[in-house]
């Protein structure tokens, strides 16, 4: 048992957890034909069968039940604040499974020349709003109200002492839906993670229908028609948003350190986290010259790296790996698409740079509130 708990704690360390997720992710949600081939070869498409769903749900429930025997796990998971997040894990899994299940079913039907499940056969498929729809909605409403009532009686609202600006709770956690942003704030300047990136998330979501104008596969669930779109969206949604919420809820402890799910939340847990800026790496560690006084000379390397990332990478990708996409989207839509994707990818890139090299900022100009 202790061995298993230690194993889980090890796996839950950020580098291992994120690497495993990121590698597995695009095999489970194949990005293109190459990944799709491997998805079929590794039999990962069977994940969307009913049997796999039941097994996975049982495994997850079993893990939670087993975990509850551990006092550290119990104290985190049964905290009234965190109970909904445990529920969220199951709900997100179930609805992801449901949509992927329907998508793969439709893909199969289309391959066999059949009509999709959502095909509307007038007038045989006609249903009346009243009573067919409203009746079901009414039942759902009553059940949800009853559930919320029981929940609100059963779990105490975590009301704490009056707010005090000089005493931040340790750990101080954002509301659950902002934990992704809070995690982002660990790796970025507050201006970037608090203002620029959240705005870009919204702008990016608004831009989706203008970038992806392919009418194929609209109106019904299907995966093979829209591999790239679905895989990228699910990556942003499941890995860069939901997973950060789960990590923020269960794995972030006092002093915002990482803790395994079976680890005691020790306020004095020591982690060597001395961070270094990119310019310090260059001038102090590699050149051994000491930091130059001129801000531009100091930060020129970071600026060059970022310019290369945003200006050289897009045309390079358009010429090589994303040739087809570039031809399909045209230069303007391609540029918007690739810049949004590259900005989204700065988050995992900066996470890894922080975890592996203790890199703080690629460009650090605290004198003018500009850090990236």
């Amino acid at each position, binding site marked *: 048992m202790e061995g298993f708990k230690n194993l889980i704690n090890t796996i839950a360390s950020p580098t291992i957890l994120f690497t495993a997720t990121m590698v597995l992710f695009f095999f489970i949600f194949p990005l293109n034909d190459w990944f799709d081939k491997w998805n079929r070869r590794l039999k990962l498409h069977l994940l969307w069968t009913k049997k796999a769903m039941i097994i996975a749900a049982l495994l997850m429930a079993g893990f939670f039940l087993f975990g509850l025997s551990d006092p550290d796990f119990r104290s985190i998971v049964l905290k009234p604040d965190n109970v909904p997040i445990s529920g969220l894990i199951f709900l997100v899994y179930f609805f992801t499974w449901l949509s992927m299940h329907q998508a793969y079913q439709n893909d199969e039907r289309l391959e066999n020349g059949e009509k999709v499940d959502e095909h509307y056969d007038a007038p045989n498929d006609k249903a009346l709003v009243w009573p067919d729809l409203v009746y079901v909605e009414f039942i759902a409403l009553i059940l949800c109200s009853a559930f919320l009532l029981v929940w609100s009686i059963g779990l105490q609202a975590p009301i704490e002492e009056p707010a*005090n*600006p*000089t*005493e*931040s*709770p*340790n*750990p*101080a956690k954002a509301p659950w839906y902002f934990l992704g942003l*809070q995690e982002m*704030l*660990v*790796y*970025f*300047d*507050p201006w970037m993670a*608090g203002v620029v990136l959240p705005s870009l998330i919204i702008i990016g979501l608004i831009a989706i229908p203008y970038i992806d104008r392919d009418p194929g596969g609209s109106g019904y669930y299907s995966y093979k028609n829209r591999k790239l779109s679905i895989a990228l969206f699910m990556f942003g949604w499941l890995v860069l948003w939901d997973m950060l919420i789960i990590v923020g809820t269960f794995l972030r402890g*006092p*002093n*915002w*350190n990482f803790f395994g799910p079976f680890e005691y939340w020790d*306020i*004095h847990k*020591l982690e060597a*986290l*001395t*961070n270094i800026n990119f310019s310090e790496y260059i001038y102090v560690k590699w050149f051994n010259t000491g930091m130059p006084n001129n801000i531009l000379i100091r930060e020129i390397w970071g600026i060059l790296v970022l310019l290369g990332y945003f200006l050289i990478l897009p045309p390079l990708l358009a010429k090589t790996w994303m040739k087809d996409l570039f031809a399909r989207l045209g230069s303007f839509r391609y540029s918007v698409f690739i810049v949004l994707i590259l900005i989204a990818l700065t988050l995992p890139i900066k996470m890894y740079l922080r975890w592996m090299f203790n890199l*703080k*900022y690629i460009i*650090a100009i*605290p*004198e003018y*509130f500009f*850090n990236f």
Partner: protein
Amino acid sequence: MTETKTKKSVTKPASQRPPAALGKAKTADEITRRSFFSWLSIGWVAFIAATGSFFTMMLRFFFPNVLFEPVQTFRAGYPEDYTIGEVDLRWKDKYGVWLVRNEEGIYALSTVCTHLGCTPNWLGLEQKFKCPCHGSGFYKTGINFEGPAPRPLERYKITLADDGQIIVDKTMVYQKEKNQWNNSEAFLKV
């Protein structure tokens, strides 16, 4: 032309009018083009006056007659009250200041994290300030070394009064990244 016509057709009741003229005829309580515009302008003037005064009130709200701000300057006792090598927490709750005494003197650190403004905790065992919000860490000097905080904690003006007491003035801020810590008022030599 249309105006004179209006005045003439005033008295005719609606029922006596020939059906063909129904759309064009005008009665006393009917809205004419001119009265419509005068009512419209009255409406707009009223609307602008109402919203204008509302926003004036809102703006006025930002400049209260009396400001219940905590005192920005305070006396912090005598230098002998502070132990060498310790971070003093006694002014943290009231004024948001840590006084740190080292071999050479005393400096006043702001308790506001330079990342997003939470209040870090002083961890005596680890000899560092650690912010519970995003994990920023600061040395005893206030210099940032862990987590996302982009710059060191700020220092406040610290001087001696005539009676030998320490005076901390929070209105004067000294930032390391602007080379202001060398200022004689950022550090009280004892």
